[in-house]
């Protein structure tokens, strides 16, 4: 344009040299620090969970009271050794191996509960936002009902009634934490639904299903991903809380929350028993939230161009 061609006003066809949306998305994603760091940390925790049986130095369930309460390697203690880099717990189980295996439980619960609650919340929210009127009233009533139930109390009640196993915890969490999905999906669907391209699709003759799946969903999916990451972190913390209260995952499973719970009696003299799984939880939640924030920044339409 600059080389002497006449200036054409704004209807001039721009050349196709501009990057396509997917190229821009990649560029923005890889220049976003939070997205990159969160992604790398989460990926490594995921890899750790997948490869747990291969990389864990010991059996996480192997109790040997002869080697109990060995402090981690950075302690000035004669007992600390490289055989147990993070020490052992009060039953003499290798803490590093338990930590590595525990990541499986945290990720499984986080992912499965997020999936269940995501499906419930998205269906309710999109239906309420798209159809409005009576559907919206009913969904709003369900959301309000759900919001008036205290999650931890209900989870405690259910777990004490039907017993507790990993999958019961997952289902209880999944059926309880869909409210944010529903609220966010409802309001974003309402916004998108009133845009002209939805009216244009209706005028073209698109069916309701087609409008929801090919016009509305692609434009709300970034919000969905952000909520999903937040809810995944939420589910992992709730599982840790339930396990800490003794109503989540049952011993001797190496859940991080359970590890904190089991170490709590020793918090004064051996704080690392609580500190190590606590830091692991912190890092996992932080990485998920960083990734979620990153996805929001990277995909938000106002960040375009």
């Amino acid at each position: 344009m600059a080389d002497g061609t006449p200036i054409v006003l704004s209807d001039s066809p721009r050349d196709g040299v501009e990057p396509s949306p997917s190229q821009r998305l990649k560029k923005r994603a890889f220049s976003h620090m939070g997205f990159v760091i969160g992604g790398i940390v989460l990926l490594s925790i995921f890899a750790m969970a997948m490869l747990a049986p291969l990389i864990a130095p010991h059996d996480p369930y192997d109790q040997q009271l002869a080697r109990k309460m060995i402090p981690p390697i950075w302690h000035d203690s004669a007992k600390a050794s490289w055989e147990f880099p993070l020490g052992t717990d009060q039953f003499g189980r290798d803490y590093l191996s338990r930590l590595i295996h525990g990541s499986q439980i945290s990720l499984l619960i986080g992912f499965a509960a997020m999936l269940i609650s995501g499906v419930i919340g998205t269906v309710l929210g999109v239906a309420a936002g798209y159809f409005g009127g009576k559907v919206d009233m009913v969904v709003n009533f369900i959301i309000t009902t759900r919001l008036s139930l205290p999650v931890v109390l209900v989870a405690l009640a259910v777990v004490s009634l039907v017993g507790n196993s990993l999958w019961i915890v997952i289902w209880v969490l999944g059926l309880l934490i869909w409210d944010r999905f529903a609220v966010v999906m409802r309001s974003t669907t309402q916004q998108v639904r009133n845009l002209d391209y939805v009216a244009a699709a209706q005028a073209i003759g698109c069916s309701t299903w087609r409008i929801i799946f090919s016009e509305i969903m692609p434009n709300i999916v970034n919000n969905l991903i952000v909520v999903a990451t937040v809810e995944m972190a939420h589910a992992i913390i709730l599982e840790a809380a339930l396990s800490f209260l003794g109503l989540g995952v049952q011993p001797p499973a190496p859940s991080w929350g359970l590890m904190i719970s089991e170490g709590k009696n020793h918090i004064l003299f051996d704080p690392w028993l609580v500190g190590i799984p606590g830091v692991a939880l912190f890092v996992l939640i932080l990485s998920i939230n960083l990734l979620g924030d990153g996805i929001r920044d990277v995909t938000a339409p106002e960040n375009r161009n």
Partner: protein
Amino acid sequence: MTETVIRATDVTRTFMISAGAFRGKKPLRAVNGINLEVERGEVLALVGESGCGKTTLAKMLLGLLPPTSGTIELTGQPVNSIHRLEMAKLVQPVFQDPYSSLNPRKSIGSIITLPLRVQNDPNPETWRKRAEEIMELVGLPSRLFNNYPNQLSGGQRQRVAIARALINRPEVVICDEPTSALDVSVQSQILNLLQDLRKELNLTYVVISHNLAVVEHIATRVAVMYLGRIVEQTETATLFDAPEHPYTEALLKSVLTPDPSLGIPDTQLGAAYPNPVNPPSGCTFHPRCAKVMGQCSEIAPTPTKRPHGHVECHLYDDTAKPERAAS
């Protein structure tokens, strides 16, 4: 030989507006008894202030909103009996804002071919070719086929919207303020494009606009709407030369001129636009009318036939005189 493409008979559309918690709902008559006939090849402009029911009427013509009462016929068939896919082949919209009328997640090609896919067009291998043909027709280079709306300018986006509307060759195109969101320099290009396409494809337009210059340029007939009713309907030249309804006069006076020394025109529309939930009695325009008479606040005027159309005002009818109404 002329053929009536759109016929609206006594069309009303009422929305129930909640007046506040526990206070029930009140009816808002967005469109209140409209009769309209548009012949093939005509360009009918709907003008009027915001909130007078233009867009509601357009949505009903598109079949997106069912009328509360009255009937709308397109090419002789009542709208509520036409299947949505048939309806889509008859009438298509072009919206005001090309930034919100194109799905930002879809490529231009996918937006333009969507009508073909929705109609289950039998020849998928011709879709790309047909899309490129229509793109050429509306003045879009075919290399934009795989681009996304955010890579296009406002004028180009509006061309995409027009291409999407025209790819199935509809009979009627409803343009809701087709130029008001565009740069001034692009507006005339889009208007000329719409004019050319009308001749080429034998289209019928209903154009909604605030911009009277646009209306004068493109329309063959004009319907002036006020509070859900058409108060004057006539040929464009007649309307601009000799407006009959006081509201039309005021609208024409309200056009700003580029010469600042002329100041801001006095429209004599003193009072604000009335609350449509609680419209004035009699002629709904009487509180703002410069030529208000005694019976205006009591008796609603009925359409009076005029040489080139009709007007709804007591100045021109003699049927609503008080003595006649009493007898």
